[in-house]
């Protein structure tokens, strides 16, 4: 699953560690989601959407 996490993070000048702290997860988790190696659960996807003040669809897409 593709995502725009890196872009959204860069816009806010957040490091992976900053985002991880805001999400209350490990930096490894953020990296795994960001690189598309781990698909987050719906609650985590909603948490990301709330944090970036956007929708889940605006962050994630199912294009390969």
């Amino acid at each position, binding site marked *: 699953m593709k995502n725009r996490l890196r872009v959204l993070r860069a816009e806010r000048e957040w490091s992976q560690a900053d985002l991880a702290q805001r999400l*209350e*997860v*490990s930096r*490894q*988790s953020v*990296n*795994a*989601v960001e*690189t598309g*190696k*781990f698909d*987050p*659960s719906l609650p*985590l996807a909603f948490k990301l959407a709330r944090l970036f003040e956007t929708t889940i669809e605006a962050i994630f897409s199912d294009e390969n």
Partner: protein
Amino acid sequence: MLCSFKNPAEHRYVIRMWIMAAFCVLFSFVAALVFRLCHPHGVLSYLVAVLPALPIIGALVYTGVYLAEEKDEFQRNLLVQSLLGGTGGILAVVTAWGYMVDFAHAPQMDLVWVYPLFWLFAGISYGIVRSRYR
């Protein structure tokens, strides 16, 4: 190592595992001492012999508790995959060994090795699973 906890659930898990390991050593020592000095018989001998297994069972329970307490779903996923690897690995070994005992009269495997081998396979699995996300 003890100072590098990433979250409270992991902190509690490591502390609990150390406590269980300490009890396992203590109970092993107590059981060995009781058998050497008192030579228990019957039900009492079974009760004393099972003492060192209790902290091991406790460690397995606390692993389940950690999975319930860990809020980071990625870390949970890593541990679940590792535990599956550990379970699969030890099942494969004891099954193969069982057939070797049955057909080739190989020596019986001491069941005490099942638990450490389980964690050995789980550790190897963790390394493999973790490397996939790098």
